[in-house]
């Protein structure tokens, strides 16, 4: 049977067909939909971990117990999971383990565009790179086989264009007859103390040599001879672009990009007149080809930054460009916090209080944009609290009072807790705001340990943030309603003035939560046109439901779209002229 699947759906399908038993992940674009699809196969135990390190550790345990395990994350997630990953390389596996790293060249929704192929080389782990959904499915299955055959974890690398593109996939059944998981003691392999690890390391080196050799005959590396004048080594979505733009060129399509099949590369180089590498981001393949003493053109003509596209490759090879059309100058359309978002009021208050806000990653990062303009730093998940501690250590007593960390519920549980622990432990101080909207909103509303449900939709314990913070030693913990502007502002002001750590927790849910009874819509608001004095103060919260209508009245009037308004009430509190009221 054939179906049109995204790369992510196809990876989930591949895991199912490969007999995978456990899938664990922390969400992150563009990887998130993999687990949102494995959960549809009842044979796979799918779960969201609080962060990527835990996700990988759960996968490692499942593998050591003899079951096949899939672990997925976005590229920066591998930074968080790197500690277990590097040593897993030494232990190897029992049941096959495939780790998906979904890279994001062009940073469509990421804070950097690190090239995670480097991790494969660094951690000495084989890496596969599919170039369409059919290969996503097949390479996932192959990944499990290679993992068990070579006693190694296998990384499967996708990029946004592979994860989020759809193409036709032929479906197969789930394999049967895999060994039943059971506990088997094997300390020499699984306890990585120096004595054991010293024995394992040479085995890792040997495995990589074998893989490089065997790569020459693996079906996933494919030599395609067409015109010998031009030969291109490529992989992933770039292979598709090359076929599109340079259909006559010969290609060496690599499905395993680490270790490289050196013999195959030499053979290809000998058969073509001019050799190129077409790859996104780092000259990962190019440098290794050069180290074989082979002359090759790559980053001399192709960009290191951003993703490649057919047009960019056309450019690099000097092919003719189609005549250009002009779009004209148009206003931008950046993403925005939703109408009724509980984050909005907090950032409005922070702006008014002239806080220096160390930020974090989530929907609330949009608080950086005008008109709220109330985020001053954003580095990686969980960093806000540590940065608040650090900046407080160096600035004056007066300025210290302006330092506020903001962090979402999912992000706090991901890697924020340790920052708060440190702030208390080391007698530092700053105000920490936990924006608890009960969900991981940014990546599309995934449940987390504070939302009361699992990925498989089973009810579960939900974390009590005040209690958690109390046990870390925070003495001042306040819960506020972020839709109550006066309260939010007052509490922020009081806690900012305090020379001790304090935590403020907001307690209103994300408007996108679909689960019944969590988000409850209020009564929509309306502008009473005669009372509106055109002061524009309601526009300062940047709510998409509020529109400025310049042609109304003498100086223009505000208008609230009843279809968008959720009745959160924030704008009503801002209007001094009582021109905003509840719809009857």
């Amino acid at each position: 049977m054939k179906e049109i699947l995204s790369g992510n759906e196809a990876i989930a399908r591949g895991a199912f067909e490969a007999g995978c038993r456990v899938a664990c992940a922390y969400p992150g674009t563009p990887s998130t939909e993999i687990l949102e699809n494995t959960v549809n196969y009842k044979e796979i135990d799918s779960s969201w971990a609080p962060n990527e390190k835990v996700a990988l550790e759960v996968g490692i345990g499942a593998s050591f117990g003899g079951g096949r395990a899939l672990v997925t994350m976005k590229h920066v997630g591998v930074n968080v999971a790197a500690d277990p990953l590097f040593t897993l390389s030494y232990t190897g596996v029992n049941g096959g383990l495939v780790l998906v790293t979904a890279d994001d060249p062009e940073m469509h929704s990421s804070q950097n565009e690190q090239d995670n192929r480097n991790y494969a080389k660094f951690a000495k782990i084989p890496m596969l790179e599919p170039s369409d959904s059919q290969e996503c499915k097949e390479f996932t299955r192959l990944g499990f086989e290679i993992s068990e055959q070579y006693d190694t974890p296998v990384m499967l690398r996708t990029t946004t264009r592979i994860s989020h593109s759809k193409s036709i996939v032929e479906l197969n059944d789930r394999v049967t007859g895999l060994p039943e998981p059971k506990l088997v003691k094997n300390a020499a392999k699984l306890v990585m103390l120096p004595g054991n690890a010293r024995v394992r390391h040479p085995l890792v080196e040997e495995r990589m040599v074998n893989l490089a050799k065997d790569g020459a005959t693996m079906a996933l590396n494919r030599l395609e001879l067409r015109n010998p004048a031009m030969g291109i080594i490529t992989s992933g979505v770039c292979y598709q672009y090359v076929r599109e733009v340079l259909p006559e060129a010969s290609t060496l399509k690599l499905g395993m990009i680490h270790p490289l099949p050196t013999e195959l590369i030499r053979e290809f180089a000998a058969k073509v007149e001019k050799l190129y590498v077409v790859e996104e981001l780092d000259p990962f393949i190019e440098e290794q080809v050069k180290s074989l003493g082979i002359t090759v053109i790559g980053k001399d003509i192709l960009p290191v930054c951003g993703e490649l596209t057919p047009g960019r490759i056309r450019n690099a090879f000097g092919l003719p460009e189609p005549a250009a059309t002009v779009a004209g100058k148009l206003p931008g359309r950046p993403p925005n916090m939703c109408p009724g978002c509980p984050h909005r009021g907090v950032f409005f208050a922070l702006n008014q209080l002239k806080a220096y806000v160390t930020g974090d990653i989530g929907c609330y990062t949009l608080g950086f944009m005008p008109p709220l303009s109330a985020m001053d730093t954003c580095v990686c998940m969980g960093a806000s609290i540590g940065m608040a501690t650090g900046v407080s250590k160096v600035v004056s007593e007066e300025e210290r009072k302006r330092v506020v960390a903001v962090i979402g519920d999912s992000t706090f549980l991901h890697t924020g807790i340790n920052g708060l622990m440190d702030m208390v432990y080391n007698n530092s101080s700053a105000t920490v705001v936990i924006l608890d909207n009960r969900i991981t909103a940014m990546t599309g509303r995934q449940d987390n340990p504070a939302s009361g449900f699992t990925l498989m939709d089973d009810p579960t314990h939900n974390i009590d943030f005040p209690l958690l913070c109390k046990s870390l030693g925070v003495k001042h913990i306040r819960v506020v309603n972020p839709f109550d502007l006066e309260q939010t502002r007052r509490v922020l002001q009081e806690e900012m003035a305090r020379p001790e750590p304090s935590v403020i927790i907001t307690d209103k849910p994300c408007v996108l939560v679909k689960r019944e009874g969590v988000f409850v819509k209020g009564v929509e608001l309306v502008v009473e046109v005669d009372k509106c004095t055109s002061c524009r103060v309601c526009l300062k919260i940047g709510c998409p439901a509020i529109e400025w209508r310049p042609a109304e009245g003498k100086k223009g009037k505000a208008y609230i779209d009843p279809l968008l308004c959720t009745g959160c009430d924030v704008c009503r509190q801002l209007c001094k002229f009582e021109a905003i009221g509840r719809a009857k």
Partner: protein
Amino acid sequence: MSGQITNILLVGVGGQGILLASEVLSETCMLAGFDVKKSEIHGMSQRGGSVVSHVRYGKEVFSPIVPEGEGDILFGFELMETCRSLPLLKQGGTVVANDLRIAPPSVLMGLEPYPEGLAENIKAQFPDFLLVDGQKLASEAGNARAANTVLLGAVSKRLEIAEKYWVQALEKMVPQKALEVNKRAFLLGRSL
């Protein structure tokens, strides 16, 4: 250079149902026996940002994204977004656009006006331009929210794929309770 490949771009604002329309379109192509690829960026789309979805079909499709300047049909759900994507279209390409304006944040805040004369600008560069009042026709079909299906109908007439495949795809992808309205909306669009 893409030979017999047809390149379609669906553009608009997050939340307008673009992803569903492009799913129906690609499903139709597969049912009609073509190879098909579809690509879009949907990280931030839920928060009202611009959305561009690429659908390509033919005998064998390589790139999942339409090469810049090689689009055959631009299918716009919103006027400003339609203009923004014109550079992806080939000279002489077709534009089918919904006559709808959704104000971006800077316009909502009164910092700049929504641009004037967009339809004229499109028409001047792409004579094969159809402006559709999707909302109005969808209301006639029974639900203003089926505007994207009206547009899909209008686009369908410009592609050489038999009607039965479109209907099959709609039946597969659209939830049962909205199916009849969507079929009517589709046929209304197809008659334009």
